[in-house]
C-alpha cells in the first residue's frame, strides 16, 4: 500500500537514542516504546489492509477522528506484532462506540481501565493468554494489545494524566488489561456467542473496569458454595450505587466445580444477581446512599447491576488453584456499557 502517511515526521539525529526521544516528546506511558518508523507503521497497516486515512473511530465528545495510521503508529510503539493489529483496531472501534461513551470512562476521576476480553480462534493464532497467570505478565499479545489501546487513548484521544485523564488513583490494568476466554476447556458457550456472535468469529469485548479482585474458596464442592463466597465479596464492591457491568472470571477449579453441579453461565448470573442486593438501610448507614434512614429501608433492596445479563461470565485462568475473580465496571448503565466488536482478521 503506497498511500501517503500524513503524520508529522521527526528526525532523530545520529547519536540520539530514539527511545529517549520518544520519552521526551511525551508519547510514552512510562515504559520504553518501539520507535515508530515508517517501515514498521506500514507493516502494521498492511496487516489490516486499510488506507492510512481510514477512520477507525470517531470520539464524538472530543471531536477526534482516530485514523488507521494513528492506531498503527501507537501499536508499533506498544510493541505489537503486525498480526495483532486487527485486535487493536476492533478495540478502538469498541471504545468509539457511543454505548461505551468514551468521554466518561476516558476522563473520570473513577480511573477505570479498559478490560479487553478476546474470544474466538484468533486467541490461539496470536497466543492470547487464557490460562495460568491470566492477568499477566508473560504474554506479548496480552501486554502489547492493551498497551496499544491505551497509547491511542493517550496520544490520539487526549486522555493524558492530569489533563483529560483525571483518574484519582487509576490502576495497573491501565497499562494493559487483556484476557482471553479459555474456550477449549470451558464447559459453557463463550462470551461472544452469548452476545450474538458465531463461535468461529473472533471478537473483542471492551468494558470500562476497575482492577480485578481475587476471591478464594477451597472448601466448597458445589456451585452454591463457591458462588456464595463470590456474591459475599461482590456485594460491597465498586460503586454499589450504580454499576453498568461486572465481569466474573471463573478459573479452572471453580469452573469445574460449578459445571460439575450442572450449572451454566445463566444460572451463575442469576444466583449472583439475586445475592448481591443491598438494603437501602445498609447503604445509608455506610454513607453510600444519601439521606437519613427512611421507614422500610431495611426491606428495600437495590441490586448491584440492573439485570443478571449485566454480569459477564468468562471462563479463564489457571487450572490449579481455588481462586477466581470479579471486576467491577465503571459508572452506570447510562454512562458506559460493555461493547463487543467483531475482529476482521
Amino acid at each position: 500500500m503506497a498511500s501517503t502517511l500524513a503524520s508529522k515526521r521527526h528526525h532523530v539525529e545520529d547519536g540520539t537514542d530514539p527511545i529517549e526521544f520518544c520519552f521526551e516528546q511525551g508519547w510514552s506511558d512510562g515504559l520504553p516504546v518501539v520507535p515508530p518508523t515508517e517501515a514498521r507503521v506500514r507493516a502494521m497497516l498492511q496487516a489490516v489492509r486499510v488506507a492510512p486515512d481510514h477512520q477507525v473511530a470517531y470520539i464524538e465528545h472530543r471531536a477526534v477522528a482516530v485514523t488507521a495510521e494513528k492506531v498503527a503508529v501507537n501499536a508499533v510503539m506498544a510493541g505489537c506484532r503486525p498480526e495483532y493489529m486487527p485486535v487493536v483496531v476492533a478495540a478502538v472501534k469498541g471504545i468509539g462506540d457511543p454505548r461505551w461513551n468514551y468521554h466518561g470512562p476516558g476522563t473520570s476521576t473513577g480511573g477505570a481501565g479498559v478490560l479487553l476480553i478476546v474470544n474466538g480462534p484468533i486467541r490461539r493464532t496470536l497466543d492470547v493468554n487464557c490460562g495460568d497467570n491470566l492477568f499477566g505478565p508473560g504474554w506479548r499479545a496480552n501486554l502489547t494489545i492493551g498497551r496499544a489501546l491505551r497509547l491511542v487513548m493517550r496520544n490520539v484521544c487526549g486522555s493524558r494524566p492530569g489533563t483529560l485523564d483525571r483518574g484519582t488513583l487509576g490502576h495497573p490494568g491501565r497499562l494493559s488489561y487483556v484476557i482471553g476466554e479459555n474456550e477449549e476447556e470451558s464447559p459453557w458457550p463463550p462470551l461472544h456467542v452469548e452476545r450474538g456472535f458465531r463461535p468461529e468469529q473472533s471478537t473483542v469485548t471492551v468494558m470500562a473496569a476497575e482492577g480485578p479482585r481475587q476471591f478464594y474458596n477451597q472448601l466448597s464442592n458445589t456451585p452454591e458454595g463457591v458462588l456464595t463466597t463470590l456474591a459475599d465479596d461482590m456485594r460491597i464492591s465498586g460503586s454499589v450505587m450504580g454499576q453498568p457491568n461486572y465481569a466474573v472470571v471463573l478459573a479452572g477449579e471453580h469452573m469445574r466445580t460449578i459445571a460439575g453441579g450442572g450449572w451454566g453461565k445463566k444460572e451463575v448470573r442469576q444466583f449472583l444477581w439475586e445475592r448481591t442486593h443491598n438494603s437501602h438501610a445498609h447503604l445509608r448507614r455506610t454513607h453510600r446512599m444519601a439521606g437519613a434512614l427512611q421507614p422500610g429501608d431495611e426491606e428495600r433492596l437495590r441490586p448491584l447491576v440492573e439485570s443478571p445479563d449485566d454480569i459477564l461470565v468468562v471462563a479463564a485462568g489457571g487450572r490449579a488453584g481455588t481462586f477466581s475473580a470479579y471486576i467491577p465496571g465503571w459508572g452506570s448503565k447510562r454512562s458506559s456499557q460493555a461493547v463487543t466488536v467483531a475482529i476482521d482478521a
Partner: protein
Amino acid sequence: MELLDPTTEATAQRIAYVPRPRSLEGARVALIENTKFNSDRLLQKIGEILVRDHGAASTRMFRKRNASVPAHEEIVAEIRQTCDVAVAGVGD
C-alpha cells in the same frame, strides 16, 4: 532515523462564542445540572445569588442525561428559546 508522530496533530477549529452580556439585570438564567449529588443545590445557591446580587430576573434548572455527556439537544433548544444566559459546570 525518522519517526512518525503518534499524536493527533491539531487541526484549526473555529469556535464562535456568543458575546458576554454586559450585565445580568433582567436576565433569565438557565442552570444546567449534571446529575451529580448536590449539583442541583449548588446551582440553586448560585442562581439565588445571581438574582439577589446581580438583578437576574429568574432562574430555571435543566438536567442533563448524565454527567459524562454534553447537554442534549432538547435542553439546548429550550434554553435558546427561554433563557438569556446559562450556568454550566463539571465537577465532583
